[in-house]
């Protein structure tokens, strides 16, 4: 198994197993390899179909500096740092209850309860929830925020009824 690919980075390349990730006092995520280090951000390559694998490390210009195929191959401390970073990078709102879906001119207003708190948002009338490869639904609002419904069957009856028209 090849854990890391060398990214097309002209300055230097970060590769496992020497790659370490650190969360430093400045609040930034640092990628360290031998005596090279730089701040990076993380992005999942397959946020829905394979969220646990293939994590792209990106520099401040959003260019990839390394691709972590298997986070398990990192040392434990780095893995923990990566997981923390992924929580922020992979953040979406998780809907647990739907209170109301109101249709207006060209938009639909959803009032929902999310795991992060109550939220009201709008979708375009012709923007339908997306069925995710691993199950669940993903709704995108007009501002680009994402709302995930992991398990429709776990919703209460009213929520299911309101969602009925939008998902099979």
């Amino acid at each position, binding site marked *: 198994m090849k854990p890391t690919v060398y990214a097309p980075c002209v300055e230097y390349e970060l590769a496992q197993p020497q790659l370490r990730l650190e969360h430093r006092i400045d609040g930034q995520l640092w990628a360290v390899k031998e005596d090279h280090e730089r701040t990076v951000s993380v992005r999942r390559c397959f946020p829905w179909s394979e969220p646990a694998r293939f994590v792209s490390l990106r520099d401040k210009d959003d260019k990839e500096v390394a691709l972590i195929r298997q986070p398990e191959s990192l040392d434990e401390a780095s893995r923990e740092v990566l997981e923390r970073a992924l929580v922020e990078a992979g953040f*979406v709102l998780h809907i647990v209850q739907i209170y109301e879906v109101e249709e207006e001119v060209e938009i639909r207003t959803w009032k929902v309860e999310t795991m992060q708190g109550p939220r009201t948002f*709008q979708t375009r009338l012709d923007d339908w929830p997306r069925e995710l490869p691993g199950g669940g639904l993903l709704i995108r609002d007009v501002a680009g925020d994402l709302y995930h419904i992991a398990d429709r069957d776990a919703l209460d009856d009213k929520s299911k009824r309101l969602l009925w028209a939008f998902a099979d």
Partner: protein
Amino acid sequence: MTTQINNRDQEIVSRYTDQPGRLPADLRAEIEASWGNQPVQLYALADLDASMRLADHWVALGPDHVAVARPKASGGWDVYSFDRARIRQVRNAPGLSGSVLSFLGTADEPALAVLRYTHRQRRAMENIRFVLREQLEGRAVESDDSDVEYAESVAGPIKEAQALVAGNRMAVIWRLLGYLKPYRRRVYVGMSAAAMITLVSLVPPYLAGYLIDRVVRPVQDGTLTVGAGATVAWIAVTAMALVYLVRQASAMVRLRMMSVLGEFVARDLRRELYEHLQTLSLSFFSRKKTGSLITRVSSDTDRLWEFLAFGVVDVSLSAVMLIGLGTVLISLDWKLGLIMTIPVPVFCWMIFLHGDRISRLFLRAWRKWSRVTDVLSDTIPGMRVVKAFNQEDREKARFNDRNVDVTGEINRIHYTWTTFWPALMLAVHATTVAVWVFAVPRLLGSTLSAGVFVSFLLYTTMFIAPIEIIGQMARTMNRATSSAHRVFEVLDTEPEIVDAPDPVRLEPVHGRVTFDNVTFGYDGVRQVIRGMSFDVAPGDMIGLVGPSGGGKTTVVNLIARFYDVTGGVIRIDGIDIRLIDTGHYRRQIGMVLQDPYLFHGTVLENIRYGLPQAKLEEVVDAANAANAHDFICRLSHGYDTVVGERGQTLSGGERQRVSIARAILHDPRILILDEATSSVDTETERNIQEALDRLISGRTVFAIAHRLSTLRRASRLLVVKNGRIVELGTHSELLAKPDGVYRRLYDMQRELQVGA
């Protein structure tokens, strides 16, 4: 104006989101006090806390400070301020649905602030990031109004998605009915005719009952002679015939008056809409999809016709009809009348519920239809790829699955309505049966006359249509208000470019163009043009070069006054462009764009577009000068050849030459060439370049080109980067700068040419 927009944006934020419409007043006061009364210039909501839960944290920017505030559990705010000068770096880490903005100080100190926010706050946060980044590069940016910027940034995505937010439905209907005013007479006639139909419809059942009770039975009983009975009967029959005649005549008047009237209103709306569209600025058209605007002028106005012509009258008269029928039935026989009328509200409610259920079914069907059309819009334009990868079977299967799926969903709709309507009719008939059940003993006991009962039965059949219309009223109103919203949104959009009260007409325009410290941004914070100054003499040719996104096209858009500057001034022949008669000024401007736009029509009409009265000799001369005459004559219909939508029947180079001929005939004093030769081959480019050389002589020309060789005739070159002029000079002067931007671009192009 700004205040109105801001109020509207704040209303949108309050109505459509669950976040405050502005920075809380107590927090603003606290922050400003802690800054020595310096004002908050810009702010944003950081709506996620460190544990990524929704929160109301704020970040505010002042002239010298940044403040981050969190609500305290005990009430009030926990405010942390620091000097803007301490910020060494601003970093943004975008995520799937949330981002993290960090303000960093020196390497050995903790981050000055870390802000987490959902995409809804992205625009407001980007404004803050932009201002701080500018500061790091030594440039100061000031915001016009922090409340306006904040509300606009949050309301923006909602406004872009929805036609007219925060509109009141009844207000929209009243406004729509206001369009009937010029046609009052027709409205009165149409409504009177409709009222007449309603009234006379009540007569035949009454006459039937009257005939039975007052003629047939008395004659059968022998209390009335046959002759007298026949006379009364014939009068009644004649009256009935007259009633039907009046009814149908009224129907004809009503249908004609209201349909023609609706068409007049739709015509007025279309005209007003189209005229208003012509006054709107380019920024409006860049925000709205073309299809959406076309729909507003065509099908939305058509739907409004339907509502005005029939909906208004049908709904109001159905209500009158139901009340009238109820009154008549109860007055004929109050017991039977109550049996018949009490269930009516229930029936209306059942129809309303059915409409709700059907609309949810339609929503599902619509979603599934969109999946079918997705396949079509994917595969038909991409058929070459499908075939090249031999994926026909897979695409057929994908289409079939979705086709079957949508059919199932539509059939579900059919099952629903085919069940509901017979069931409703059964309920109506059950009411009739109930009337029979109560009436029969009374008929037999002679406490109810046969005539009254027959009248009663005939009246009951008239209940069904108005019940149906009232039940559908919500849907009718929804459809009409949706369309009206979309139409009024356009009508309510204020043109951003408005002439001064007494605009100056430059006659003639000489073509001197002066930029004096011009700044411009498409929104209130981010500047696309920053403090740009230059002076171009009449007849000069200016080449605009520089990297993409640097602001070249914005410069020419400002010269054409498609937008107004946000700072500084542009002068044409020494006069502020905002004081000049825009229409007259634009007639002095010619544009040749990278993708020339030809309208559906003949080549002749397209060349004459700016000057419809031009003589044929002038058209041919212009086409000759544009190197277009020869190919036009090769077309089977010559200058009378119809070119398709967007001129698709001509090649790119041909369309470009027709557009140059159009510009030559237009004879502009200021000419704008925006990448006029970038999308054609070398031979065509040579032809176009020759034509352009003829076109530019004697005019002030601004030419944007990536291919620097096309600017060899330019008297000066402006190198534009990041909204500023970074170099200015002739070709040879700029080449003489070894580290110059122009020199680098020139060398790169030469290397590419050598490599090729």
